[in-house]
């Protein structure tokens, strides 16, 4: 929707879920995974998680922190927070438009 936002192909949805998880604060991989699974009810495999994390890090949307006992936390960068906000506003506008068309505007 936003031409400036990086396109992650099949990892778009996992990437968005990771960014939302990190918007609550820095987390390591396992904490991200379990939080996403709890929030969405969908499993997230370690392979998918790290494929998305690598892309997000490469794009500068997240950054790694110093590891604690081999577990490395990641945090959202300023660019990442801005892009996440744009993505969520775009999705919200799209959802509201769809719901209006169904006669059920968002409260």
């Amino acid at each position, binding site marked *: 929707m936003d031409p400036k936002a*990086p*396109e*992650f*192909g*099949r*990892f778009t949805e*996992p990437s968005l879920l990771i960014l939302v998880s990190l918007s609550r604060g820095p987390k*390591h*991989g*396992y904490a991200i*995974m379990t939080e996403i699974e709890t929030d*969405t*009810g*969908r*499993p997230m*495999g*370690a*392979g*998918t*998680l*790290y*494929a998305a*994390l*690598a*892309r997000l890090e*490469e*794009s500068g949307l997240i950054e790694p922190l110093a*590891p604690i*006992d*081999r*577990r*490395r936390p990641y945090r959202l960068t300023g660019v990442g927070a801005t892009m996440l906000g744009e993505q969520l506003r775009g999705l919200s506008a799209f*959802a509201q438009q*769809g*719901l209006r068309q*169904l*006669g*059920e505007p968002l409260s």
Partner: protein
Amino acid sequence: MRQFLIRFYPAVWRARYGDEFEALLEERPLGPFDVADIILGAIDARLRLRGRGASPTTARGFTMSLRIGGIAAIVAGAAWGLTFVGSTGILGDSDRLIQYAVFALALLSLLVALIGLSAFQAREHSTVIWAAVALPVVGTVVALVGLVAMTLLDDAQLVAGVSAWNLWIFGLMAAVFGSGLFAIATYQTRTLSRPGSALLGFGSFLTLPTLVITGEIGFDAVGAVAIVTAIVGFSVGWIVLGVAAIRTMAPAVDPQPA
């Protein structure tokens, strides 16, 4: 197992993410879903390293998801139903090759469904889920050999009194038994659909004795009702679980039409 899986990733990737990735994998038991997801992730990492999709703007990769498992479960349910109907002889011998192709599709889609839908169950019932996948994997290989042999040699004895048909029926039973184990783990984990897993379990565990008994003494009215009930339970159970998985993947906002 974990070390072995990490070795699928390229050395450059392991140098950067290897330690934290291994620490992550140590957090909980690995199921077939996790193993498949890690292998797909490793393929993706190797493709990215070779410049295919290296740019974040063109990246394409693989993900193991409930959606893939859900679609496979629906295909498996339909294909198994057709296979059972075909095995009754209603469709006639003229379509035998098509029936074999449908059975091969049924076996392969069942494997994908078992792997794709077993993520949550494997965390509580790891051994049961591994058995639920391993049995059909072995069964699929044996049954495919049986199918090829039946196509080429009809029902000739292959070795030690074992015929091509024997191989086929062994593969079928292994897949059905694996489905039954999967149904038990799914029911106990309260994931996907409890009615769907109950139906699949009922169909699986009714199919096995019914096939054996009708194979020994032939069909009678009770046997026919039992086998049809088992087939319907097995096929519909898989389809219900597949639909439940796809519905789980639907967007969180789920508006009701006015």
